[in-house]
């Protein structure tokens, strides 16, 4: 039991988990800061990886990446474990809890009974912090929720061993040791440059700015290639990846803009505050895309023209992202 663990609700699961764990271990940290230092912002359209049988579109780096990158940049020693055997995985969790350690875990949302039924799809990248055990239930700080929640042992076991894409394999992670002091400015700078690099110069056509252009080009081909029903399902899926619970809205562009404001203070760099505004506009553009896409899904806009318009909105997003990250890179690099 960990009565002193301070649960804070956040917009996105993993950055919330990271911020809450770091704060618990003595480094006061906002969710936006955890997301930024964890270089969480990303884009990729990966048609050959399927999530709920539909192509993966992601606006963030893979599960576990934010915690790993943020702690590494700050020089924090962490441990991470995956398991083959569910029983072993449960024992390991119990031992850590007995030692008074809050433990991060990757889970599949489908098996978490405290989630609203409407959100229970097979999505295996959900992060939460287990903070205690009461009889046959675990006490959980799930950053998406306002309060801590209880989850029966058997359900958490299923969630930790969810199968399919992004299978968590019982993954646990926790802070082992905090350094004497942190070099926050250096971490912030490095993390910003990393995001600029992945968005601007990843050599894969599916990633970053090029990935957005690629999705835009593909999108216009869907109606002829897939027929109306499948096309609309794919479009709806993109909205869900961009807007559904745990994205912080607008595919993480707002949360990143919030980070840039904090970064401006940490680095004493006013240019970053200005670029935060550009990032906010970018988030608004993504929301316009979601709005139009939803109208198409509801049949309130004609298919043919709308797909051209959707594609051109995506191209605009891509161009804006390119401008933002190019300027960001020159604002931070010296």
């Amino acid at each position, binding site marked *: 039991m960990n009565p002193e663990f301070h649960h804070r*609700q*956040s*917009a996105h699961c993993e950055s919330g988990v990271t911020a809450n764990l770091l704060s618990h271990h003595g480094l006061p940290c906002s969710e*936006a800061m955890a997301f930024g230092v964890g270089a969480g912002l990303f884009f990729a359209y990966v048609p050959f990886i399927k999530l*709920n*049988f539909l192509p993966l579109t992601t606006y963030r780096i893979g599960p576990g990446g934010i915690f790993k990158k943020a702690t590494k940049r700050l020089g924090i020693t962490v441990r991470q474990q995956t398991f083959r055997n569910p029983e072993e995985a449960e024992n390991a969790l119990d031992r850590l809890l007995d030692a008074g350690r809050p433990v991060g875990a990757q889970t599949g949302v*489908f098996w978490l*009974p*405290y*989630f*609203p*039924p*409407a*959100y*229970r*799809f*097979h999505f295996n990248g959900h992060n939460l912090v287990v903070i205690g055990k009461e009889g046959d239930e675990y006490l959980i700080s799930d950053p*998406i*929720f*306002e309060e801590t*929640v209880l989850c029966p042992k058997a359900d958490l076991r299923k969630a930790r061993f969810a*199968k*399919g894409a992004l299978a968590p394999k019982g993954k646990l992670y926790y802070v082992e040791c905090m350094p004497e002091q942190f070099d926050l400015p250096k971490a912030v700078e490095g993390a910003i440059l990393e995001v600029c690099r992945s968005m601007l110069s990843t050599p894969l056509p599916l990633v970053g700015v090029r990935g957005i252009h690629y999705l835009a080009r593909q999108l216009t081909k869907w109606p002829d290639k897939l027929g109306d029903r499948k096309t*609309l*399902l794919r479009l*709806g*899926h993109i*909205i*869900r990846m961009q*807007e*559904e*619970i745990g994205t*912080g*809205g*607008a595919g993480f562009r*707002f*949360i990143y*803009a*919030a980070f840039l*404001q904090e970064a401006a203070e940490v680095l004493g760099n006013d240019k970053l505050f200005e670029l*935060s*505004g550009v990032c*906010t506009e970018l*988030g*608004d553009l993504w*929301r316009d895309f*979601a*709005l139009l*896409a*939803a109208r198409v*899904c*509801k049949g309130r806009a004609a298919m043919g023209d709308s797909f051209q318009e959707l594609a051109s909105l995506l191209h605009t997003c891509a161009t804006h992202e390119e401008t933002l990250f190019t300027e960001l890179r020159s604002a931070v690099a010296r």
Partner: protein
Amino acid sequence: MRKEDVPQEGGWTGGCREVNYAVDDRGRYLLEPSLGWGPKNVALSQAWEEIREQLIVIIAEVKAGKSSPLAYHMVSRQMDPSLLSQYSGVARWRVKRHLKPTVFAKLSDEALTPYSGLFGISAGELRTVPSEPPPPPAEDAPSEGDAP
């Protein structure tokens, strides 16, 4: 997004009041609770509607003797043969065979344990399908934070 533009449109909040990042009058970011947004509701209800339509087709197939009841229970948990195989530990080719009504009818309770255990239902329940699929999760009133 400005603070006053944070959507409060209700719908599929499901007891989960989210927080959104938005800017105040001075352009400073803050966290603001949101009670649902239209486009998100559209995408969610579309996903549930799709599952429901698949189930309607499968129920008809089960009645016509073209699919086994296992197909219904699989799809109602948003699984395909490959995912069901990973969860149940039954080889995929065998899962696919069990989707055939003639093969399924011959299976003993014991042979069904991997499935019934996974779904948390009895072998008897596994052999039956409802006459119509369950309604999708209800949209709730935006004013209430009722956890399921």
